[in-house]
């Protein structure tokens, strides 16, 4: 039996395939199609202190082998999450990772403190990279020192494992990753969406309700693999690879580039079975290549 289990940043997972924030809600809708207990981990839709209305529609537009979104962190706030979402999720054994965002370091610390008290939450993913809100973390991800200070602040507020989700919309992502590590992050996940734009040539307006959106899907995978590989050269903490993973082959590319686990995002919209299928495809690859444990693949790119 191929080894797929991993303890990542102190979070025990039965396989390295997680679902990415914003593509799986809080699990309830998707649970009608997917056995949540077969997932490596669930990363929730971003949670903020107060409810957020989100951005004006249209919020989605398909592009070549990808999609732009501009949801704008619509969510009902942390209180609603704890009262109305956690009870459903408590029926499952899969580790739950709460993705959080705020307007200030204080917001993030407050959220971390509140969620620290929830036994079901096994880790926090810090969203400092949503491209669709003027406030809500984007500022932090551009500035290495601001990232470092933010992560230090959150680190003091919680004992939960911290995963910092990095933006690709920066000059040198490895610099930000290193600062996150120095500040006490237990892992980094990358990449968030790439800032993009699509224009309707009839109306001459953006195809989204906001001028720009975040690009995801297979179109961004080569960039994500490259960035994972770059970050793997400079950090010792585990890396979670995200960006256009549709198949087991895609996931294995990320492992070879240096990722210890992956998150499946846009693929959930295309195929509700994607994460489960990807786990199966990774198993098949390991079997066909006589590899006992997928960890042998991590960072094992031949140069």
């Amino acid at each position: 039996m191929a080894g797929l289990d991993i303890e990542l940043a102190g979070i025990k997972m039965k396989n390295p395939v997680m679902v990415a924030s914003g593509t799986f809600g809080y699990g309830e809708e998707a649970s009608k199609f997917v056995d949540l207990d077969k997932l490596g981990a669930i990363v929730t839709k971003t949670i903020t202190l107060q409810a957020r209305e989100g951005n004006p529609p249209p919020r989605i537009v398909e592009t070549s082998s990808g999609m732009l979104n501009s949801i704008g962190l619509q969510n009902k706030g942390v209180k609603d999450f704890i009262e109305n979402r956690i009870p459903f999720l408590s029926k499952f054994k899969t580790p739950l990772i709460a993705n959080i965002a705020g307007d200030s370091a204080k917001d993030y610390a407050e959220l971390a403190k509140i969620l620290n008290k929830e036994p079901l939450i096994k880790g926090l993913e810090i969203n400092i990279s949503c491209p669709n809100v003027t406030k809500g973390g984007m500022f932090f991800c551009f500035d290495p020192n601001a990232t470092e200070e933010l992560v230090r602040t959150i680190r003091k507020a919680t004992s939960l494992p911290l995963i910092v989700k990095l933006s690709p919309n920066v000059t040198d992502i490895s610099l930000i990753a290193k600062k996150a590590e120095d500040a006490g992050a237990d892992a980094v996940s990358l990449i968030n969406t790439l800032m993009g734009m699509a224009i309707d040539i009839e109306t001459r307006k953006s195809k989204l309700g906001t001028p720009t959106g975040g690009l995801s899907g297979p179109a961004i995978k080569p960039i994500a693999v490259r960035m994972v590989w770059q970050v793997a050269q400079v950090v010792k903490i585990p890396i979670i690879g995200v960006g256009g993973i549709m198949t087991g082959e895609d996931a294995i590319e990320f492992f070879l580039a240096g990722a210890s686990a992956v998150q499946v995002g846009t693929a959930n919209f295309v195929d509700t079975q994607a994460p489960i299928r990807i786990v199966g495809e990774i198993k098949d690859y390991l079997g066909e290549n006589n590899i006992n444990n997928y960890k042998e693949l991590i960072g094992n790119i031949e140069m």
Partner: protein
Amino acid sequence: MSIQENCRILDHQEVAPQHFKLVVASKYISSHAQPGQFVNVRCSTGYDPLLRRAFSIHRTAKEHERFELLYQVVGKGTRSLSQYCVGAELDILGPLGQGFALEKKDIAILVGGGMGVAPLLALAETLKQTTKAIYVLIGAKDKARVLAEKEFNAITDQVLVSTDNGSYGKKGFISDILLNVIENTLDPSYLPLATIYACGPNPMLKAIADIAFQKKIPCQVSMEQCMACGIGTCLGCVVKTRTGYQKVCDDGPVFKSEEIVWQD
């Protein structure tokens, strides 16, 4: 409940220029779908088009374990779908969303503009069992694009058509026909017994909603928005309502017309 399953194509015909009727086999979807619900269909096996496309269920035949979609080729996804042959399989997620609330009223007025007639056939077939009078108002660009008229004629004698260019039926907007039915055809004492069900482009729906409001007739509208997941997780397909943004895929696609905050 809804499921994701591979459904075999039983028939696929071009019924009007760039408009297709697709018949697929599914025991589950045909027996569980309610009028106004939709399916999310993967229109290619590759990554471009990537996302599924949402289609209203046009008609179900539970006894034959099949259902029909009626769609127009408008872009990459529908173009790809139109090339699928009989016998091929399609990956379909459904039935999805909240369909029409079936009012136990004596009079139902169904208003469809363009592709908006798609969900109304399933609705008319269900309503005919309980409703005394069904009016079907079909608006189209021109004669060639008047959809499903024959099928509606089999259900009710009251099928009225308008076209933008007057090539068939009355020239003008379908909302004008609706106003005429309400003001001149129906006995005023019947109005409290009527419900309007509408689907079509937003400006049409807004016009219908305004009439419904003025005439105090309850009105349900089936809304459209670009979708990703179709199951309520991504929050991509929202429309503005009086209680904030609501999801077309999950809270809708059918809403009470007075809930919608109409955008120009």
